[in-house]
Each structure stands twice: as C-alpha cells, then as structure tokens.
C-alpha cells in the first residue's frame, strides 16, 4: 500500500498521488509509483519551471530542432547541422566529484550522439567554494579530473568554459557541461517509437543498481540526514561510451535505426515512455530480457536504474539482425526487449507477470505544472541601494591592479584546461583562454564558434539584468572571434523553488534571458534547470549559464586574444561609465557584493558587436577582447599577458569618471580592438557609421603595462610580474 511514508520517499505530494490514481484509474503499485516519481520530479518534469520556460523564443531562421528533443539543432550550411545542449550534474558532483562530473560528461555526450551527431566539442562551466579550504580543493580536483578522465578517453576536445569561486558553492558546487556535435542536416535522429510491431532494442552496458533515484535526488535539498538517502552514484565507463558512439553512428549510417533515445536520468523509464509518448504509441517490454549486472534485481530497480552508457533503439524486425551485427562488432550487446504497440500504454512483464501497465501520456505529458508563489527578496532592494564608497585616498590602484589579475575568478584557468584534451580531432583553432573557442570545419573556410558564460553576482543583485547580461556577454565573446550568434542553450542553477524568493529569482532571470534572446534574435534550442542547489537552507547565487554557438565565415580573419606586435593601435569600442556595483573590484577592495549590476542597452550592445564583427571581417583587427570581469584595465592586462612575447601597452584615458571605476568598473558593451596603426582610422570610421563610440586609447609595446588618467600615471606594472601573478594564482593552491 502506498502510504505517506512511501510518498515522502518518492517526493510526491498527496495531491500529485491523487492525480496519478485518477490518471491510471486505480492505485499504482510501487514500481509504477517509482516511475511517476522520477518522471514527475523537478529534474525530469520541470514542474516549477515549465510555465516560465515558455517565455523563451524558440524560432529562428537556422533552427532545425528546438526544445523538446535530446538536443537543439541548427543549420550551418554546407548540408551540416550543429547539435548542442547543456546539462547540469551538480548534486552527483558534490557527492562523488570524480564520478559525478565524469558521468555528467557521459550523459551530455549521449544526448548529442543519440541525435546522429558526432560530438566535436565540450565546454564546462564550474563553480566551487574558495580554494583556500581543502574540501573545496578536493571537490575542484575531483570534478576537473572527472571531466578530463571521461572526455579525454572518449576523444572529444574540451575547448572552453568558465570557473568561478564563491562560498555559496562550497557545499553546492555547480558542474554544467555543454556538448556540441556535428551531423549531416538531413540525418538527424529523434526519440521516436514509430511503427506498431517494431522491435525495441536495448544496447550498451548492463543495468545495475546505480543511481536509483538520481533524478529525485536532484530534486531535493541536501540536509543533515541526506547522508543515508544518498544513493549509489553511477560510475562512468568512457571506453564503453566510445564504443556506443561508433556503433550507433554506424547503425544510423546503415539505415538500421528508426528512433533512438539515450538512457539518462530515469533510465529505462524515461526512454520507453518518452519515445512512445512522442509517437502516440505504446510499448510492451519484458524486464527479464534486460541485460542485468546484478542478481535479483526487481522491476522497480530495473526501471529506475541510472546505469550509464545505455541506449534504447526502435527499429523494424528485419533490421534487428544487421543491427546486432554492428553492435557485436563493437563488442556491445543489443538485445530485443519488447515491441512497439498501439495502445499508448507502457506494459512490462517480469517473471511472466504484468508488473507495469500505465498510460505513457500521463507519465510524460501530464506532470503537473506549478505556478509557485514568487516574492522579491528584501535583500535585493537593500543591496541595490548600497552607495559605493568613495575611493580611499590612500588606495594603491597599481597594487589593486596586480591583485585583481591574480584574483581566482579572473586569474588564468590553465590549471583546469590543460587537464582537458582540447586538441583531439584537430579542429580547435582558438584554444581555451580566448573569449570564445573556434573549431574549423575541415574542407571549408568556416569556423564554429562557441562559448559558455555566466555571472552569478550580477544575477544575485538583479536577476533580470543578470540574465540579460549573460546573453549579451556570450554574444560579445562570439563577436570577438568574428562570429554571429545562432542559437542558445542554457542551464539554470537555482535554490529551492518552493521558496518564493528563489522562484522570483528564477522568474526574473528567465525573463531577462528571454528578452535578450529576442533582442539578439537567437532562439533557445534547449537547456536544463537545476533547482534545489541548497544545503541546510543556504542557496547558491542564482546562476544562469548560457551556451551560445555561432559561425565564422572565414577562419583566416579571426583575431588573437593577445597582442601580436609592437606599436599597434588600441581601440576602445563602447563607453566607460562610472559603475562599480557587482564588480570584482568592489569584492576585492571593499569585500562587498552589493550595488546595482551594470546597465545594459541592447541597441548599443548590438552595434558594438556589429562593429567588431565588421572590422574583423574586413581584416582590420589583430587582437580582440571583450571587457568583462575586472574591467578595462584587466582586459588590457589579459591582452598583454596572452601575447606570445609579453608585449606591454601604454594607454591614456581622460574624462571625469573616478579612476577606480574607469580602470576596474564592469560597464557592459565594451570591446578592445587592436589594429595596425594605419587601420585604426578605418575602425573608427566603421564605428562612426554605426553610431558606436570608439577611440584610440593608446598603443602596444614595451615591457610594461602603463595607464594614465587625466595626465597622471595610475598604473605601471611589468608584464612579467603581471603574467606570473595571473598564471600562478590557481596552481599555487594545488602544489604537491
């Protein structure tokens, strides 16, 4: 009998249970309850977020497949499509950092190749607690080596991402992984169970008792008593995944597959019901035929297991043998476990008994959607009213400059990305460390640009604007390599949605992102929501992470992220404003996370990006870098540090803005372009034409970084010193 204890264990409310009973016309048995509980969990059912996610624009001229499938698909010309999606693996990565992160990569890879695409790149967005605590270091080490361990072995380059540190992530690290794949555009595969009588085939690893209730776990807050409830985390097998990839792509190319779906969260439950529901069919399977790793597994365990490296395939009976031949060549199992039916029910037998008999639509489509109460938290208004303190008279800005480049949020992330194979497949032409990564498309002049971005402090201060800025910044990163954005995937990491303040943050952020995507005219093709990133009542900052892909028409035009030569003109596109709210400077010097997030004017932003792209297209730009965390001074420093020969710069600034804001304020819509002197004028002319403020602010050269403000030298640091500070900051924490 299903009692309150059973319901609580399944994270279902009494009302939800009653509607299950109504939908299936009787009381469910425990296995059926388990099925509903995972499919109606926050993680799979999006019950708190659905009503808001509808606000995202999901149409666009290059769009082939929007939200609702395993990944989004965009047309990139030449008969090719890019397939991409982001996924969070936050909870598992805290429990078992290595395996949690590794299986996060495994899961998102399967989402991509289940659609017929070969994964060509991974990007990862990571947030940890500060590195001075040993626990945070070990989570960071485990997560990074998990991502590297899985991605490297699988053979996909991890080409970009971001890493941030804040105490709110100490017990709730965020691990978001985005995968980008490439496919022929007319050979996209979908999760369909079409054709009554067709075979349902299980391929890949055997089913064990792994991660039962992973999806429900990802839908609950951690408390002191979670320790026992924490289920077996899954262990990844990247080698098996590689075999699965090759076998699936080969079977697809040979026309042996009608529909296919990976088994991720909620395993067999999710794949069977979703495939059937999307095709208006049913499925009948025999659980005894499911390959099992352990003895004595019951229907509940088999249906809910989250064992990795498995897929479900539907194909016609005559293709079963050839399909099995392909899989056996790759040393994999492919077992017929049932067939497609026309009754729209999922039926499963176990030891000859019918143990599951439920309507697939009820499971998949009728999960309740909640419009949970929202309420703006009091702190938001309070923080926004914060008056930025005067610049202390004795503040040594030159010293602040040095400290800022070594600030972990800003410092070099090479310690992370050199553990990732970012070159395999030999397409990566803009490596990690730039604004956006670029892959060449062999045999064409084109490049595929991609970036992952987030700024949770802005979102904390002002979630709507934070959402807008994250889109703008991601697009700006693409503009810096000359790419126009095409499509967006997003991962929304928030606290407990049952709290009105959290729900408000979520709603605001989504509205911000939606608005910005409309402004840039790019569709959201998919994404992921991760709620309950909260431990003992302490939620993470609202953390929307955006993945955007775009196209570069001619890879030969892509500028470098660092200076390339002496005496080149440094052009500032955009306007410096006196804004210090939410800046890293304010954090570092005043230990404050307050104020208002920087302003964003979409028209200005779009024009700045357009000037940047045009200038690049016309081959005027040698170096391009967007101005983000740390402001103008830090952006200039990065160009200098990233130059091969350690080229310095001298920049002269004027204007009434207070010097600290001018150097380190994080006003939006600014890009640094560096050009040969003779070309600087052309860039300015371009800018003038598009009504963008632009100015030559100085030139490259020398071995020092020098900035003047109103005829006063405010910054002067040797490149070498700054480079060391930038490079050694993070490795210093991990010295053996």
């Amino acid at each position, binding site marked *: 009998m299903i009692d309150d204890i059973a319901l609580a264990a399944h994270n279902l409310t009494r009302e939800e249970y009653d509607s299950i009973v109504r939908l299936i016309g009787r009381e469910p048995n425990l296995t059926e309850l388990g099925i509903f509980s995972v499919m109606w969990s926050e993680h799979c059912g999006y019950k708190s977020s659905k009503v808001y996610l509808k606000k995202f624009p999901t149409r666009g001229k290059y769009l082939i497949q929007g939200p609702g499938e395993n990944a989004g698909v965009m047309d990139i010309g030449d008969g090719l499509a890019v397939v991409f999606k982001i996924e969070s693996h936050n909870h598992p990565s805290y429990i078992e950092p290595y395996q949690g992160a590794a299986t996060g990569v495994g899961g998102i890879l399967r989402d991509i190749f289940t659609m017929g695409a070969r994964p060509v790149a991974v990007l990862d967005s990571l947030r940890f607690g500060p590195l001075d605590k040993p626990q945070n270091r070990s989570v960071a080490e485990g997560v990074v080596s998990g991502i590297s361990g899985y991605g490297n*072995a699988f*053979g996909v380059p991890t080409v970009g991402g971001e890493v941030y540190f804040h105490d709110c992530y100490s017990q709730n690290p965020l691990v978001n992984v985005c995968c980008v794949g*490439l496919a022929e555009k007319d050979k996209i595969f979908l999760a369909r169970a079409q054709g009554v009588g067709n075979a349902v085939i299980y391929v890949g690893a055997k089913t064990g008792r792994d991660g039962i209730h992973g999806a429900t776990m990802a839908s609950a807050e951690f408390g002191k008593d979670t320790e026992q409830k924490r289920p077996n985390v899954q262990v990844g097998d990247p080698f098996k995944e*590689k075999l699965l990839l090759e076998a699936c792509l080969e079977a697809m*190319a040979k026309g042996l597959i009608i529909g296919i779906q990976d088994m991720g969260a909620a395993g067999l439950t999710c794949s069977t019901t979703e495939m059937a529901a999307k095709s208006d069919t049913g499925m009948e399977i025999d659980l005894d035929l499911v390959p099992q790793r352990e003895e004595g597994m019951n229907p509940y365990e088999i249906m809910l297991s989250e064992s990795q490296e498995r897929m479900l395939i539907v194909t016609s009976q005559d293709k079963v043998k050839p399909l099995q031949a392909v899989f056996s060549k790759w040393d994999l199992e492919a077992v017929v476990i049932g067939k497609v039916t026309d009754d729209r029910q999922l039926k499963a037998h176990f030891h000859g008994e019918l143990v599951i008999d439920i309507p697939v639509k009820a499971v998949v489509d009728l999960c309740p959607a909640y419009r949970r109460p929202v309420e703006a938290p009091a702190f938001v208004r309070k923080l926004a009213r914060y008056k930025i303190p005067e610049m202390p008279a004795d503040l040594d800005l030159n010293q602040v400059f040095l400290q800022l480049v070594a600030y972990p949020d800003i410092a070099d992330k090479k310690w992370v990305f050199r553990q990732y194979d970012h*070159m395999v497949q*030999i397409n990566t032409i803009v490596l990690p460390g730039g604004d956006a990564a670029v892959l060449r498309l*062999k045999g064409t002049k084109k490049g595929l640009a991609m970036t992952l971005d987030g700024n949770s402090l802005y979102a904390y201060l002002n979630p709507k604007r934070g959402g807008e800025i994250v889109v703008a910044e991601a697009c700006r990163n693409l503009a810096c390599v000359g790419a126009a954005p095409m499509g967006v995937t997003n991962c929304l990491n928030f606290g407990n949605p049952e709290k009105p303040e959290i729900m408000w943050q979520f709603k605001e952020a989504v509205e911000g992102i939606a608005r910005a995507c409309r402004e840039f005219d790019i569709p959201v093709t998919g994404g992921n929501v991760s709620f309950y990133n909260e431990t003992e009542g302490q939620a993470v900052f609202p953390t929307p992470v955006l993945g955007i892909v775009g196209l570069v028409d001619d890879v030969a035009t892509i500028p470098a992220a660092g200076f390339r030569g002496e005496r080149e003109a440094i052009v500032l596109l955009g306007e410096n404003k006196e804004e210090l709210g939410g800046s890293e400077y304010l954090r570092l010097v005043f230990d404050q996370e307050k104020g208002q997030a920087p302003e964003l004017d979409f028209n200005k932003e779009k024009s700045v990006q357009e000037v940047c792209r045009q200038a690049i297209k016309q081959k005027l730009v040698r170096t391009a870098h967007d101005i983000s965390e740390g402001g103008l001074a830090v952006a200039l420093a990065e160009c200098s540090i990233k130059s091969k020969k350690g080229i310095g710069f001298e920049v002269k600034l004027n204007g009434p803005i207070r010097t600290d804001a001018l150097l380190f304020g994080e006003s939006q819509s600014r890009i640094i372009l560096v050009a040969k002197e003779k070309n600087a004028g052309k860039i300015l002319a371009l800018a003038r034409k598009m009504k963008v403020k632009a100015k030559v602010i100085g030139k490259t050269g020398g071995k020092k970084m020098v900035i003047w403000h109103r005829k006063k030298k405010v910054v002067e640091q040797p490149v070498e010193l700054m480079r060391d500070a930038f490079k050694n900051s993070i490795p210093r924490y991990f010295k053996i």
Partner: protein
Amino acid sequence: MKFGVVVFPGSNCDYDTFHALQNVMGQETVFLWHKASDLQNVDCVVLPGGFSYGDYLRSGAIARFSPVMAEVKKFAAGGGLVLGICNGFQILQESGLLPGAMLRNKHLKFLCQPVYVKIDNSRTPFSQAGRKDQVLNIPIAHFDGNYYAPPGVLTELERKRQIVFRYCDERGQLTEEANVNGSLHHIAGVINEQGNVLGMMPHPERASEKIVGSDDGQVIFQSIIDYLEKRAGSQKKKAAKKVRPVVSPLPPLIGNL
C-alpha cells in the same frame, strides 16, 4: 607510399592521423582494424593516440594482445617501419618492441599543451628530414608519459643514440621546467635498436597544419616518406600513387571496415 593507421576500439587520434597523412601529406592511407590479421601491404604502420581498450589497467597493456599487434610484430621484425604516437608508444612498450615504461606524469595530471622537443638523432627514418638539435613545436596530451627505464637500459639508449626526441624549451635547453611530465633524460621519443620502430609522446598529427598552431610535425611524416621513397627507389621503382584528399568536416565511419 602506403600508410596504415591501426584502429583500436578506443583509439581517438586515428582519424586525425589519417587526415594528416592522407589529406595533408598526400599519401595513400588505410585504416587497419584491431581484429585484422592482414596489414594490407602498407609501407608503414602507425599506432595512433587514444585509449586503445579503455586503458584502465595500464596504458596499452591490453592492446598488445590484439590480433593486429601480432602482425605488427612480424612486420617490425621484417624491418617494416612502425610509428607509435602517444598511446601507440605505450603499446609498443607494453609489446616489448620498445624499451621502458610510462609512469604517471610527475604532477599526476593529464597534460594537454604544446611543448618543444629537440631532435637528438636526425639519422633515423623518422627524423632525417630535420636537423640535429632542431627544435619542434608539437603538442602533447597524455596522463602517462613520464618515461622510465632502469639505469642500465638508459645508459644503453644513450650509447646507441636511440633517444630521438627530448623535451626542451623554446631555445633547445633541457630545463627542468620544460620536462613537463618528468621523463628520465627528457625522453620524448625513442627508437629500437634496429632503427625501424619509433615511439613518441608528442602528437605530430596535431602539428601538421599551420592553422592548428604548428606544422612542425610534418618533419616526422616527411622523414618517413623520404625514407620509404628512397628505399623503394633502390629496390624497384614503385609507381607513386596520387591520392586525392577527401576532406570533410565529418570523419568517415572509421570502424566501418
């Protein structure tokens, strides 16, 4: 010349190597499946990078038992050229075709980055297109590349000039810092005593086109081509087959052999 790139199920630089040889260097290139017992008359076998059979036990430990390796051993014994890159190097060690073993990198992290290596012996079929002490910029990407051999073996390697590549800095200095993985004697590549089997940790296929950062890796491929052409010339003129590159953003189905 005809090259064969071996495909183990967990190889992941197989197509990259194929691309460099066929599309960049213009050589006829075929894939050799790990279960195959026929080397298709190739002139040179390349064991590419990757994780042959998952490499959970030790890198390359299990690949050595594959059917294709039995053939590769015979091929090598008969004087055929065998190049092992990264995982290929590890497999050659495990198979006993090259001396030494790989330990974990000294900082116990996977390392992916461009490094400099210098040619210490330019009189091998794999390095003759370069000069002695020439510095090459080629990426590495490995977890276990920390070359180890017992002291006696090392002495012999030095004496017999079997160390072909060493990690160095941009100017060719053998600094401690440049030896990123901690290899003994800075070893990045060794050749067998007979001079026809070479293993190297850096990936020349990742450095064969300027657009990906460097084309220094061509030195290795060009050396092999020159050597083979000369050898063929001295036997009988082997009709040089022209190969049309098939460059596409999507690799072919490699396993579909």
